[in-house]
């Protein structure tokens, strides 16, 4: 089927991926990038698987007789399939079409993949070995329930046991084996019951692995030796494996009986469930040396062509399977359809039916395989499951699981796979109250707080609840929230491991991958949108699975179970509160009427009880599912009253007296019961109040956290302020320093001024002396003039008057020649200080000189 769509859709890219599922347009690009990687990975893993499976076949060689047996069984199964098909033909449905849908990949397209498929077909037998290992797990779970029943009814012990086994004889196929083995089982369970719970469970666990209850109990000593002795192991295994199939049929039988019987013990089954993982830990390993290799292979992904088969092996389809059961369910479904809603149960059934009808076209809309016929299969599958397990009925999300399984395997196998997944792996998840899924959300939140405290703090701060993000992941098992390749890879591991650990690990891995991005978001809307879109683009499936499997080894089933126990009461209180508001009065009245009717007619009630114990799995009145607690109570009351009622058969009068006494006693009891009921109710109210208180305290806590946040902010602010102050101080200091520098500079300037002053004084002195010198020069000049005059006077006296004008001119010229000399010297002196001193200073000092010499200078210029 998957192959078919695979081939078909290569041409349809990129609107759909290679599985035929719609791709979001924004992811088409990335999908194309990864398509090649997927292809390479696929090739690699199909090689690895081929090697591994061939090796397994090699191992299984010594017990070929067993293989033959298996083959025979397979053909038998195939025959039955044909039979069913032909029967459907009788109902006027088109078998040929159906075949194309319901048939496994091996038959769907022989031309294209014939060779490959053939290899797989050869190898397929070796899957049986894996199947054995896996189905041992299924049976073990059942055995645990088995044990419980034995313990629960210790007073009735093995007689009751055979009774229940006998009751299951309606599954006619196994009658003879059953008859043969029931004695043995009876013996062994009786033996087991004498051991402690743990011990007996252990023994039955390993017993199932060998499928050999008889030899286990009788020759346990011998087996111990075999386990120690490596050489003899394989031979022993070969011998022992022969009755394996008998073992299966036995457990299938008990399965039938248990489903009915265990109902009453539903509550306690949960608790014992906690011990499962502990047992899982060791029971596989010694007997399946290749288990580790298989685990790593599964983590690497299951090849596409093999996925359907491998998943069936993991879930234990064969172990679950009861011949014709599916067919009967469908037939019954059709009958009730014809009869139309006659009793109250059918209102619930019609509710599912309507919901299923609404949801079928909305399941993988547009997927090429979900055409008219595909949808019909889907409808049958969902209706059959709802019939099979009325406590779940139909819940949205199952439509996707059923659709996915239908794409990978034939219809009936898909049904059993769905049964395996929902009844074993996800028990209590999709029931009316969805208790377990709510519990898991609380558990996940706690794990998140442990693992990513900062991220959760941030989400808290934004007001985002972890469950907003993880809720849809868990409920849909990642279908529609991750790209398909990743979904399938996660499912591979999840189905292999047989519990919900992988669910948690994957969710944690997603948080690890995308936490850093989520921390940067600014409001609740952005955070949620981002988480959705990031998860939707997780195309790197190998990275995701590897991170999930390797990064969170501490998250184990044991740890989860521990946390679930811790959180379950809170959920139960809320659920109770809800249902109380809705229908408490109806419920309590129901209890009251039941008590009433019991007093009136206890025997009929006991009988009713017995019939329900008798294993009528298909019985319409599976009310015990709905009211487990009350039925437990009934049980208790039963036992209280049964013995005297049934055992007493004396004569009439005595009987009357006795009955009167009994009546009084019962009235007394009734009164005390009423009191007790009231007490319980007040206790419940108390609890509810406490819950309110819890909510309040949670609110207070939240507020406190906010306060803490604010305080943090405040301290931050204060720090900032102090930092600012520091900066200011520094600035001030710097200012002071600069001011100091300025004062220094001013002082310097003053000093310089002083120096200037001194210089000026000096200069003035110099000028004074210069003036003096000038005076002297003038004096000298006038003296010179006088001498010259004197000389000329003398010359006048000696010379002729003719020569006189000539003399005068020469005298003029000498004077002229002398004057420039004196002035030039003075000028030179004058310019010297001007260049040496500041110009301003020099100007002021020059003034007097200038004033004293203007006439001279002008005269000189002329």
């Amino acid at each position, binding site marked *: 089927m998957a192959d078919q769509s695979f081939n078909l859709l290569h041409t349809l890219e990129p609107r759909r991926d290679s599985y035929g599922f719609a791709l979001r347009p924004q992811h088409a690009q990335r999908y194309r990038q990864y398509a090649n990687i997927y292809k390479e990975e696929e090739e690699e893993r199909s090689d690895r698987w081929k090697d591994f499976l061939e090796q397994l076949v090699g191992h299984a060689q010594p017990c070929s007789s067993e293989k033959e047996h298996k083959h025979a069984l397979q053909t038998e199964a195939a025959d039955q399939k044909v039979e069913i098909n032909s029967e459907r033909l009788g109902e006027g449905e088109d078998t040929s079409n159906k075949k194309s849908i319901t048939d496994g990949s091996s038959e769907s397209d022989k031309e294209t993949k014939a060779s490959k498929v053939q290899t797989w077909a050869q190898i397929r037998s070796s899957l049986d070995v894996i199947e054995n290992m896996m189905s041992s797990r299924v049976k073990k779970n059942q055995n645990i329930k088995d044990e419980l029943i034995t313990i629960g009814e210790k007073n009735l012990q093995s007689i009751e046991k055979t009774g229940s086994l006998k009751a299951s004889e309606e599954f006619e196929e196994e009658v003879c084996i059953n008859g043969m083995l029931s004695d043995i089982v009876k013996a062994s369970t009786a033996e087991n019951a004498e051991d402690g719970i743990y011990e007996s469970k252990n023994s039955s666990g390993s017993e199932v692995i060998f499928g050999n209850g008889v030899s286990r109990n009788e020759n346990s000593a011998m087996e111990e030796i075999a386990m120690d002795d490596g050489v003899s192991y394989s031979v022993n295994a070969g011998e022992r494996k022969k009755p394996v199939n008998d073992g299966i049929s036995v457990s299938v039988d008990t399965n039938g009986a248990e489903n009915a019987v265990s109902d009453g013990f539903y509550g306690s089954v949960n608790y014992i469930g906690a011990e499962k993982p502990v047992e899982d830990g060791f029971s596989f390993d010694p007997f399946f040396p290749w288990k580790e290799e298989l685990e790593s292979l599964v983590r690497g992904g299951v090849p596409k062509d093999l996925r359907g088969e491998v998943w069936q092996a993991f879930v234990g389809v064969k172990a679950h399977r009861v011949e014709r059961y599916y067919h009967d369910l469908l037939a019954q479904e059709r009958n009730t359809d014809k009869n139309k809603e006659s009793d109250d149960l059918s209102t619930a059934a019609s509710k599912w039916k309507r919901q299923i009808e609404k949801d079928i076209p909305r399941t993988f*809309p547009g997927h090429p395989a979900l055409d008219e016929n595909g949808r019909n299969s889907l409808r049958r599958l969902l209706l059959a499951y709802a019939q099979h397990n009325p406590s779940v009925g139909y819940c949205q999300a199952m439509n996707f699981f059923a659709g996915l399984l239908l794409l990978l395997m034939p219809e009936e196998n898909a049904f059993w796979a769905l049964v395996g997944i929902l009844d074993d792996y996800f028990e209590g998840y999709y029931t009316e109250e969805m208790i377990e899924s709510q519990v898991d959300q609380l558990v996940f939140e706690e794990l998140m707080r442990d693992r990513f405290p900062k991220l959760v703090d941030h989400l808290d701060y934004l007001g985002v609840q972890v469950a907003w993000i993880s809720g849809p992941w868990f409920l849909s098992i990642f279908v529609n929230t991750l790209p398909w390749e990743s979904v399938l890879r996660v499912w591979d591991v999840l189905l292999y491991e047989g519990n919900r650990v992988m669910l948690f690990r994957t969710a944690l891995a997603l948080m690890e991958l995308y936490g850093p991005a989520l921390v940067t978001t600014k409001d609740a809307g952005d955070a949620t949108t981002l988480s959705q879109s990031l998860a939707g683009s997780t195309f790197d499936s190998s990275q995701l699975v590897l991170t999930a499997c390797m990064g969170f080894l501490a998250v184990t089933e044991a740890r989860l179970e521990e946390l679930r126990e811790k959180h379950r009461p809170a959920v139960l209180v809320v659920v109770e509160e809800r249902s109380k508001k809705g229908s408490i009065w109806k419920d309590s009245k129901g209890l009251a009427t039941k008590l009433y009717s019991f007093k009136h007619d206890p025997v009929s009630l006991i009988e009713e009880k017995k019939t329900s114990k008798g294993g009528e799995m298909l019985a319409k009145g599976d009310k015990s599912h709905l009211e487990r607690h009350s039925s437990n109570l009934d049980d208790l009351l039963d036992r209280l009253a049964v013995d005297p009622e049934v055992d007493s058969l004396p004569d009439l009068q005595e009987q009357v007296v006795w009955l009167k006494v009994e009546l009084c006693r019962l009235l007394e009891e009734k009164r005390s019961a009423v009191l007790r009921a009231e007490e319980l109710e007040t206790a419940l109210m108390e609890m509810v109040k406490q819950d309110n208180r819890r909510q309040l305290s949670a609110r207070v806590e939240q507020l406190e956290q906010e306060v803490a946040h604010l305080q943090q902010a405040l301290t931050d602010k204060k720090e900032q302020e102090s930092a600012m102050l520091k900066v*200011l101080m520094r600035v001030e200091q710097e200012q002071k320093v600069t001011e100091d520098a300025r004062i220094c500079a001013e002082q310097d300037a003053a000093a310089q001024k002083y120096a200037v002053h001194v210089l000026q004084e000096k200069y003035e002195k110099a000028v004074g002396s210069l003036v003096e010198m000038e005076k002297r020069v003038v004096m000298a000049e006038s003296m010179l003039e006088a001498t010259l005059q004197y000389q000329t006077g003398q010359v006048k006296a000696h010379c002729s008057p003719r020569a006189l004008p000539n003399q005068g001119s020469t005298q003029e010229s000498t004077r002229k020649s002398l004057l420039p000399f004196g002035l030039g010297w003075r000028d030179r002196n004058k310019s010297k200080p001007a260049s040496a001193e500041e110009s301003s200073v020099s100007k002021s000092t020059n003034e007097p000189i200038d004033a004293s010499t203007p006439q001279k200078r002008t005269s000189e210029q002329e």
Partner: protein
Amino acid sequence: MGCSSSLPDRSSGRLVGPNLENGGAPDSKNLRVKLVLLGDSGVGKSCIVLRFVRGQFDPTSKVTVGASFLSQTIALQDSTTVKFEIWDTAGQERYAALAPLYYRGAAVAVVVYDITSPESFSKAQYWVKELQKHGSPDIVMALVGNKADLHEKREVSVQEGIDYAEKNGMFFIETSAKTADNINQLFEEIAKRLPRSTAQ
């Protein structure tokens, strides 16, 4: 001298501080509103959201498991913007157990029914009661009759819707995600009815 220059610095620092701290938070102009859609399965909750947020209509939409989230911002005439953070919940009855997770703290609840299905109308009434009991007290509720385009198959009259809404102080509108009729009006009307001071 130094002091006088540092004073304005410090005071401006104080002014900026709180602004930075509440940088992402809404003020009176930019509201952020948590809205939750409730109603029976298949009445078209997801379709209304998709029409409003993406403007698309897909007649073959997928079943919503748990809940899904989308957000959209609209601008009003008075220049305020409203960012709707929309939680679209699963419709099946049993998912009601998980609904409080989503409607807790929601400022707006849009209760949707299908006008061709009286059953979905009574389911809507259930939700209204539930919200009145467990929702926040000042929650704004809208009653929406969807699939208004299928008027020839109508089984819940407009008057019934109006009456019930009036009785419970809700806002009522009939929409069609298919034809986009009244979808934007629905959200705009809701935005107008938000209490401005307390909305966040």
